[in-house]
Protein backbone atom coordinates (compact mmCIF):
# COMPACT_ATOMS: atom_id res chain seq x y z
CA UNK A 1 0.00 0.00 0.00
CA UNK A 2 2.79 2.44 0.99
CA UNK A 3 4.70 1.51 -2.15
CA UNK A 4 1.62 2.35 -4.14
CA UNK A 5 1.52 5.84 -2.58
CA UNK A 6 5.17 6.33 -3.54
CA UNK A 7 4.51 5.16 -7.11
CA UNK A 8 1.71 7.68 -7.37
CA UNK A 9 3.46 10.58 -5.72
CA UNK A 10 7.12 10.22 -6.67
CA UNK A 11 6.94 13.05 -9.20
CA UNK A 12 5.39 15.45 -6.67
CA UNK A 13 8.03 14.50 -4.08
CA UNK A 14 10.89 14.85 -6.58
CA UNK A 15 9.59 18.22 -7.77
CA UNK A 16 9.13 19.44 -4.18
CA UNK A 17 12.76 18.56 -3.42
CA UNK A 18 14.08 20.12 -6.63
CA UNK A 19 12.03 23.30 -6.21
CA UNK A 20 12.99 23.54 -2.54
CA UNK A 21 16.67 23.36 -3.51
CA UNK A 22 16.19 25.94 -6.27
CA UNK A 23 14.43 28.36 -3.92
CA UNK A 24 17.12 27.89 -1.27
CA UNK A 25 19.73 28.79 -3.92
CA UNK A 26 17.73 31.86 -4.97
CA UNK A 27 17.38 32.96 -1.34
CA UNK A 28 21.08 32.55 -0.58
CA UNK A 29 22.02 34.44 -3.77
CA UNK A 30 19.56 37.35 -3.49
CA UNK A 31 18.75 37.32 0.24
CA UNK A 32 21.63 39.65 1.25
CA UNK A 33 20.69 42.13 -1.50
CA UNK A 34 17.03 42.10 -0.39
CA UNK A 35 18.10 42.70 3.22
CA UNK A 36 20.35 45.58 2.07
CA UNK A 37 17.41 47.08 0.15
CA UNK A 38 15.24 46.88 3.27
CA UNK A 39 18.00 48.51 5.37
CA UNK A 40 18.42 51.33 2.83
CA UNK A 41 14.66 51.83 2.72
CA UNK A 42 14.48 52.04 6.52
CA UNK A 43 17.43 54.46 6.67
CA UNK A 44 15.80 56.73 4.11
CA UNK A 45 12.77 57.04 6.38
CA UNK A 46 14.80 58.18 9.39
CA UNK A 47 15.40 61.84 8.33
CA UNK A 48 11.66 62.20 7.71
CA UNK A 49 10.84 60.89 11.19
CA UNK A 50 13.48 62.86 13.08
CA UNK A 51 13.82 66.06 11.03
CA UNK A 52 10.49 66.11 9.19
CA UNK A 53 12.10 66.04 5.73
CA UNK A 54 9.81 65.26 2.81
CA UNK A 55 10.78 63.44 -0.36
CA UNK A 56 13.58 61.02 -1.16
CA UNK A 57 16.10 63.59 -2.44
CA UNK A 58 15.81 65.68 0.72
CA UNK A 59 16.15 62.56 2.88
CA UNK A 60 19.30 61.43 1.03
CA UNK A 61 20.82 64.88 1.43
CA UNK A 62 20.00 64.93 5.17
CA UNK A 63 21.45 61.44 5.67
CA UNK A 64 24.90 62.71 4.66
CA UNK A 65 25.13 64.86 7.80
CA UNK A 66 23.48 62.41 10.20
CA UNK A 67 25.25 59.84 12.32
CA UNK A 68 23.00 56.83 12.88
CA UNK A 69 24.01 54.10 15.32
CA UNK A 70 21.88 50.98 15.57
CA UNK A 71 21.61 49.11 18.86
CA UNK A 72 19.45 46.14 19.72
CA UNK A 73 17.60 45.73 22.99
CA UNK A 74 15.98 42.51 24.05
CA UNK A 75 13.15 42.46 26.57
CA UNK A 76 11.46 39.57 28.33
CA UNK A 77 7.68 39.68 27.93
CA UNK A 78 5.34 39.01 30.88
CA UNK A 79 3.63 36.13 29.08
CA UNK A 80 6.95 34.51 28.15
CA UNK A 81 9.04 35.01 25.05
CA UNK A 82 11.33 37.90 24.19
CA UNK A 83 10.90 41.01 22.06
CA UNK A 84 13.83 42.49 20.19
CA UNK A 85 13.84 46.17 19.21
CA UNK A 86 16.36 47.86 16.96
CA UNK A 87 16.92 51.38 18.26
CA UNK A 88 18.62 53.93 16.01
CA UNK A 89 20.40 56.78 17.80
CA UNK A 90 20.31 59.75 15.44
CA UNK A 91 22.84 62.54 15.95
CA UNK A 92 24.34 65.40 14.00
CA UNK A 93 27.74 66.90 14.83
CA UNK A 94 27.69 65.22 18.23
CA UNK A 95 24.22 66.51 19.14
CA UNK A 96 21.54 63.91 19.80
CA UNK A 97 18.54 64.64 17.57
CA UNK A 98 16.31 61.73 18.53
CA UNK A 99 15.62 58.02 18.54
CA UNK A 100 13.98 55.82 15.96
CA UNK A 101 12.75 52.40 17.03
CA UNK A 102 12.00 49.54 14.68
CA UNK A 103 8.99 47.67 16.04
CA UNK A 104 6.60 45.01 14.79
CA UNK A 105 3.18 43.66 15.64
CA UNK A 106 0.17 41.87 14.26
CA UNK A 107 -2.15 43.75 11.92
CA UNK A 108 -5.45 42.63 10.39
CA UNK A 109 -3.92 40.62 7.53
CA UNK A 110 -0.36 40.04 8.71
CA UNK A 111 2.71 41.49 10.34
CA UNK A 112 3.15 45.27 10.43
CA UNK A 113 6.66 46.68 10.83
CA UNK A 114 7.02 50.31 11.86
CA UNK A 115 9.66 52.91 12.63
CA UNK A 116 8.61 54.96 15.64
CA UNK A 117 10.40 58.25 16.29
CA UNK A 118 11.03 59.76 19.74
CA UNK A 119 12.65 63.09 20.68
CA UNK A 120 15.94 63.00 22.70
CA UNK A 121 14.28 62.84 26.17
CA UNK A 122 11.79 60.27 24.87
CA UNK A 123 8.89 62.52 25.86
CA UNK A 124 7.30 63.15 22.45
CA UNK A 125 6.66 61.10 19.33
CA UNK A 126 8.39 62.69 16.34
CA UNK A 127 6.89 60.58 13.58
CA UNK A 128 6.02 57.21 12.20
CA UNK A 129 6.90 55.23 9.07
CA UNK A 130 5.54 51.92 7.83
CA UNK A 131 8.21 49.50 6.61
CA UNK A 132 6.17 46.35 6.03
CA UNK A 133 2.43 45.77 5.88
CA UNK A 134 0.11 43.39 4.08
CA UNK A 135 -3.18 45.01 5.08
CA UNK A 136 -6.24 45.01 2.80
CA UNK A 137 -5.59 47.09 -0.33
CA UNK A 138 -7.78 50.19 -0.38
CA UNK A 139 -8.59 49.89 3.33
CA UNK A 140 -5.99 48.87 5.91
CA UNK A 141 -3.06 49.64 3.64
CA UNK A 142 -3.92 53.32 4.05
CA UNK A 143 -1.96 53.21 7.32
CA UNK A 144 0.93 54.18 5.01
CA UNK A 145 -0.75 57.44 4.00
CA UNK A 146 0.85 60.64 5.39
CA UNK A 147 -2.56 61.85 6.61
CA UNK A 148 -2.76 58.90 9.03
CA UNK A 149 0.90 58.73 10.02
CA UNK A 150 1.09 62.51 10.52
CA UNK A 151 -1.35 62.27 13.44
CA UNK A 152 1.33 60.62 15.58
CA UNK A 153 3.81 63.50 15.22
CA UNK A 154 4.19 65.67 18.35
CA UNK A 155 1.95 63.45 20.50
CA UNK A 156 3.17 62.95 24.08
CA UNK A 157 4.93 59.56 24.32
CA UNK A 158 3.19 57.41 26.87
CA UNK A 159 -0.41 58.33 26.04
CA UNK A 160 -2.42 55.15 25.49
CA UNK A 161 -3.33 55.86 21.86
CA UNK A 162 -6.49 54.41 20.36
CA UNK A 163 -7.99 54.59 16.88
CA UNK A 164 -11.43 56.11 16.55
CA UNK A 165 -13.72 56.94 13.60
CA UNK A 166 -14.47 60.32 15.23
CA UNK A 167 -11.59 61.27 17.52
CA UNK A 168 -12.20 63.91 20.16
CA UNK A 169 -9.98 62.94 23.09
CA UNK A 170 -6.25 63.72 23.32
CA UNK A 171 -5.30 60.05 23.07
CA UNK A 172 -7.45 59.31 20.01
CA UNK A 173 -6.26 59.22 16.41
CA UNK A 174 -8.58 59.09 13.40
CA UNK A 175 -8.75 55.70 11.64
CA UNK A 176 -6.86 55.66 8.32
CA UNK A 177 -10.14 55.11 6.48
CA UNK A 178 -13.68 53.97 7.31
CA UNK A 179 -13.74 50.19 7.76
CA UNK A 180 -10.07 49.88 8.67
CA UNK A 181 -10.34 50.17 12.45
CA UNK A 182 -8.39 46.97 13.17
CA UNK A 183 -5.37 48.02 11.08
CA UNK A 184 -5.43 51.53 12.57
CA UNK A 185 -5.72 50.16 16.11
CA UNK A 186 -2.89 47.68 15.40
CA UNK A 187 -0.60 50.62 14.59
CA UNK A 188 -1.64 52.36 17.83
CA UNK A 189 -0.98 49.16 19.80
CA UNK A 190 2.49 48.75 18.30
CA UNK A 191 3.33 52.40 19.09
CA UNK A 192 1.98 52.10 22.66
CA UNK A 193 3.91 48.91 23.33
CA UNK A 194 7.10 50.26 21.78
CA UNK A 195 7.02 53.43 23.87
CA UNK A 196 6.27 51.45 27.06
CA UNK A 197 9.13 49.03 26.39
CA UNK A 198 11.82 51.31 25.02
CA UNK A 199 11.35 54.61 26.88
CA UNK A 200 12.72 53.27 30.21
CA UNK A 201 15.79 51.94 28.37
CA UNK A 202 16.79 55.22 26.70
CA UNK A 203 19.00 56.32 29.61
CA UNK A 204 21.09 53.15 29.19
CA UNK A 205 21.32 53.76 25.45
CA UNK A 206 22.57 57.32 25.96
CA UNK A 207 25.75 56.05 27.62
Amino acid at each position, binding site marked *: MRLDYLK*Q*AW*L*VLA*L*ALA*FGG*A*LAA*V*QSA*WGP*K*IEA*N*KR*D*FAQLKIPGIVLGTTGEAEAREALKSLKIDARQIELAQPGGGRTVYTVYRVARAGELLGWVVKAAGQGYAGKIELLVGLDPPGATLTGLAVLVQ*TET*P*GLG*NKIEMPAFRGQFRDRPAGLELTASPSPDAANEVAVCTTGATISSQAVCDIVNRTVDDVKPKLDELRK
Partner: protein
Amino acid sequence: MPSDGPTATERFLRGVIPENPVYKQLLGMCPTLAVTANMQAAMTMSGAVLFVMVCANVLTSMLRGLLKPHLRILVFTLTIATFVTIADRFLAAFIYPMSRELGPYVPLIIVNCMIISRCEVCAQKQSVPTAAADAIGQALGFALALASIATVRELLGAGSWFGIGLFWQSEAAQAYRWQIMSQPPGAFLTLGVLLAIAVALGAVWNRRKKATI
Protein backbone atom coordinates in the same frame (compact mmCIF):
# COMPACT_ATOMS: atom_id res chain seq x y z
CA MET B 1 5.07 12.05 -27.39
CA PRO B 2 1.78 13.07 -29.08
CA SER B 3 1.02 16.78 -29.35
CA ASP B 4 -2.53 17.16 -30.68
CA GLY B 5 -4.27 20.48 -31.06
CA PRO B 6 -3.49 23.88 -32.54
CA THR B 7 0.02 24.66 -33.82
CA ALA B 8 2.45 26.90 -31.98
CA THR B 9 1.65 29.87 -34.24
CA GLU B 10 -2.10 29.39 -33.77
CA ARG B 11 -1.66 29.16 -30.00
CA PHE B 12 0.44 32.33 -29.97
CA LEU B 13 -1.97 34.36 -32.10
CA ARG B 14 -5.07 33.18 -30.25
CA GLY B 15 -3.67 34.36 -26.92
CA VAL B 16 -3.08 37.91 -28.08
CA ILE B 17 -6.59 38.88 -29.28
CA PRO B 18 -9.13 36.09 -30.05
CA GLU B 19 -8.61 34.38 -26.67
CA ASN B 20 -7.29 37.41 -24.78
CA PRO B 21 -7.18 36.38 -21.11
CA VAL B 22 -8.71 39.64 -19.83
CA TYR B 23 -11.12 40.80 -22.54
CA LYS B 24 -12.28 37.38 -23.80
CA GLN B 25 -11.75 34.89 -20.97
CA LEU B 26 -12.22 37.36 -18.07
CA LEU B 27 -9.33 35.76 -16.20
CA GLY B 28 -6.64 37.46 -14.11
CA MET B 29 -9.06 40.12 -12.89
CA CYS B 30 -7.31 40.68 -9.54
CA PRO B 31 -4.05 42.17 -10.96
CA THR B 32 -6.04 43.76 -13.81
CA LEU B 33 -7.96 45.86 -11.31
CA ALA B 34 -5.26 46.28 -8.69
CA VAL B 35 -2.04 47.25 -10.46
CA THR B 36 -3.23 49.35 -13.40
CA ALA B 37 -3.10 52.79 -11.77
CA ASN B 38 0.12 53.44 -13.69
CA MET B 39 2.02 51.90 -16.60
CA GLN B 40 5.19 51.03 -14.66
CA ALA B 41 3.33 48.80 -12.23
CA ALA B 42 1.21 47.26 -15.01
CA MET B 43 4.24 46.41 -17.14
CA THR B 44 6.20 45.02 -14.19
CA MET B 45 3.26 42.76 -13.37
CA SER B 46 3.04 41.72 -17.04
CA GLY B 47 6.75 40.86 -17.05
CA ALA B 48 6.36 38.74 -13.92
CA VAL B 49 3.35 36.94 -15.44
CA LEU B 50 5.26 36.33 -18.69
CA PHE B 51 8.18 34.78 -16.78
CA VAL B 52 5.95 32.58 -14.61
CA MET B 53 3.69 31.50 -17.48
CA VAL B 54 6.51 30.57 -19.85
CA CYS B 55 8.45 28.65 -17.18
CA ALA B 56 5.33 26.85 -15.87
CA ASN B 57 4.10 25.93 -19.35
CA VAL B 58 7.50 24.70 -20.54
CA LEU B 59 8.12 22.61 -17.43
CA THR B 60 4.59 21.17 -17.45
CA SER B 61 4.96 20.25 -21.11
CA MET B 62 8.31 18.55 -20.43
CA LEU B 63 6.72 16.51 -17.63
CA ARG B 64 3.46 15.75 -19.44
CA GLY B 65 4.29 12.08 -20.01
CA LEU B 66 4.82 11.58 -16.27
CA LEU B 67 1.76 13.41 -14.97
CA LYS B 68 -0.88 11.38 -13.13
CA PRO B 69 -4.34 12.81 -13.93
CA HIS B 70 -5.42 13.08 -10.27
CA LEU B 71 -2.16 14.75 -9.21
CA ARG B 72 -1.75 17.14 -12.11
CA ILE B 73 -3.25 20.22 -10.37
CA LEU B 74 -0.86 19.66 -7.46
CA VAL B 75 2.09 19.61 -9.87
CA PHE B 76 0.84 22.73 -11.66
CA THR B 77 0.43 24.61 -8.38
CA LEU B 78 3.83 23.51 -7.10
CA THR B 79 5.48 24.61 -10.35
CA ILE B 80 3.69 27.96 -10.53
CA ALA B 81 4.35 28.73 -6.84
CA THR B 82 8.08 28.13 -7.32
CA PHE B 83 8.42 30.45 -10.29
CA VAL B 84 6.24 33.12 -8.63
CA THR B 85 8.52 33.02 -5.58
CA ILE B 86 11.56 33.46 -7.84
CA ALA B 87 9.88 36.43 -9.60
CA ASP B 88 8.94 37.95 -6.23
CA ARG B 89 12.49 37.62 -4.87
CA PHE B 90 13.92 39.04 -8.10
CA LEU B 91 11.76 42.16 -7.83
CA ALA B 92 12.64 42.58 -4.15
CA ALA B 93 16.35 42.28 -4.95
CA PHE B 94 16.59 44.41 -8.09
CA ILE B 95 13.49 46.67 -8.30
CA TYR B 96 12.71 47.17 -4.62
CA PRO B 97 10.45 50.24 -4.93
CA MET B 98 8.30 48.41 -7.50
CA SER B 99 8.27 45.30 -5.31
CA ARG B 100 6.83 47.46 -2.50
CA GLU B 101 4.31 49.08 -4.83
CA LEU B 102 3.02 45.74 -6.15
CA GLY B 103 2.95 44.36 -2.61
CA PRO B 104 0.94 41.14 -2.25
CA TYR B 105 -0.12 41.09 -5.92
CA VAL B 106 3.08 39.38 -7.07
CA PRO B 107 2.68 36.42 -4.65
CA LEU B 108 -1.00 36.36 -5.66
CA ILE B 109 0.03 35.35 -9.21
CA ILE B 110 0.13 31.83 -7.71
CA VAL B 111 -3.67 31.76 -7.62
CA ASN B 112 -4.15 33.43 -11.00
CA CYS B 113 -6.50 31.14 -12.95
CA MET B 114 -5.03 32.40 -16.21
CA ILE B 115 -1.74 30.58 -15.59
CA ILE B 116 -3.09 27.30 -14.23
CA SER B 117 -5.63 27.21 -17.08
CA ARG B 118 -2.83 27.33 -19.69
CA CYS B 119 -1.11 24.38 -17.98
CA GLU B 120 -4.43 22.52 -18.07
CA VAL B 121 -5.60 23.51 -21.57
CA CYS B 122 -2.32 23.46 -23.48
CA ALA B 123 0.92 22.56 -21.68
CA GLN B 124 -0.12 19.16 -20.32
CA LYS B 125 -1.18 18.05 -23.81
CA GLN B 126 1.17 19.73 -26.27
CA SER B 127 4.87 19.91 -27.13
CA VAL B 128 7.33 22.29 -25.47
CA PRO B 129 7.54 24.81 -28.37
CA THR B 130 3.73 24.94 -28.61
CA ALA B 131 3.39 25.38 -24.84
CA ALA B 132 6.01 28.14 -24.88
CA ALA B 133 4.28 29.91 -27.80
CA ASP B 134 0.95 29.62 -26.00
CA ALA B 135 2.43 31.15 -22.84
CA ILE B 136 4.04 34.03 -24.74
CA GLY B 137 0.81 34.73 -26.66
CA GLN B 138 -1.35 34.69 -23.53
CA ALA B 139 1.13 36.79 -21.56
CA LEU B 140 1.31 39.29 -24.42
CA GLY B 141 -2.49 39.45 -24.51
CA PHE B 142 -2.50 40.02 -20.75
CA ALA B 143 0.14 42.76 -21.10
CA LEU B 144 -1.88 44.48 -23.85
CA ALA B 145 -4.99 44.41 -21.69
CA LEU B 146 -3.15 45.81 -18.66
CA ALA B 147 -1.45 48.44 -20.83
CA SER B 148 -4.78 49.61 -22.28
CA ILE B 149 -6.37 49.99 -18.85
CA ALA B 150 -3.26 51.54 -17.26
CA THR B 151 -2.90 54.02 -20.13
CA VAL B 152 -6.45 55.31 -19.67
CA ARG B 153 -6.15 55.45 -15.88
CA GLU B 154 -2.72 57.07 -15.73
CA LEU B 155 -3.53 59.64 -18.42
CA LEU B 156 -6.84 60.66 -16.87
CA GLY B 157 -5.86 60.21 -13.23
CA ALA B 158 -2.35 61.64 -13.17
CA GLY B 159 -1.90 63.26 -16.58
CA SER B 160 1.20 61.18 -17.20
CA TRP B 161 2.30 58.02 -19.01
CA PHE B 162 5.11 55.84 -17.63
CA GLY B 163 5.55 58.58 -15.05
CA ILE B 164 6.29 61.22 -17.71
CA GLY B 165 4.07 64.27 -17.15
CA LEU B 166 1.99 65.06 -20.24
CA PHE B 167 -0.78 67.36 -19.06
CA TRP B 168 -2.50 68.58 -15.90
CA GLN B 169 0.91 69.05 -14.33
CA SER B 170 0.54 72.73 -13.45
CA GLU B 171 -0.89 73.56 -10.05
CA ALA B 172 -3.89 75.36 -11.61
CA ALA B 173 -4.77 72.27 -13.66
CA GLN B 174 -4.60 69.87 -10.71
CA ALA B 175 -8.28 70.51 -9.95
CA TYR B 176 -9.27 69.04 -13.33
CA ARG B 177 -7.56 65.69 -12.78
CA TRP B 178 -9.89 62.70 -12.61
CA GLN B 179 -8.54 61.54 -9.29
CA ILE B 180 -11.06 58.71 -9.18
CA MET B 181 -9.18 57.07 -12.08
CA SER B 182 -6.11 56.60 -9.86
CA GLN B 183 -8.26 54.94 -7.21
CA PRO B 184 -9.91 51.49 -7.15
CA PRO B 185 -13.28 52.66 -8.59
CA GLY B 186 -11.37 53.99 -11.62
CA ALA B 187 -10.15 50.46 -12.37
CA PHE B 188 -13.72 49.10 -12.42
CA LEU B 189 -15.01 51.97 -14.56
CA THR B 190 -12.17 51.68 -17.10
CA LEU B 191 -12.39 47.90 -17.30
CA GLY B 192 -16.16 48.07 -17.81
CA VAL B 193 -15.93 50.64 -20.62
CA LEU B 194 -13.01 48.90 -22.38
CA LEU B 195 -14.71 45.51 -22.02
CA ALA B 196 -17.86 46.91 -23.64
CA ILE B 197 -15.78 48.35 -26.51
CA ALA B 198 -13.97 45.00 -26.95
CA VAL B 199 -17.29 43.10 -27.08
CA ALA B 200 -18.78 45.61 -29.55
CA LEU B 201 -15.72 45.44 -31.81
CA GLY B 202 -15.80 41.63 -31.63
CA ALA B 203 -19.47 41.62 -32.71
CA VAL B 204 -18.75 43.94 -35.65
CA TRP B 205 -15.79 41.75 -36.67
CA ASN B 206 -17.92 38.57 -36.54
CA ARG B 207 -20.72 40.18 -38.61
CA ARG B 208 -18.27 41.26 -41.30
CA LYS B 209 -16.66 37.82 -41.30
CA LYS B 210 -20.06 36.14 -41.80
CA ALA B 211 -20.98 38.62 -44.54
CA THR B 212 -17.81 37.83 -46.53
CA ILE B 213 -18.49 34.08 -46.25
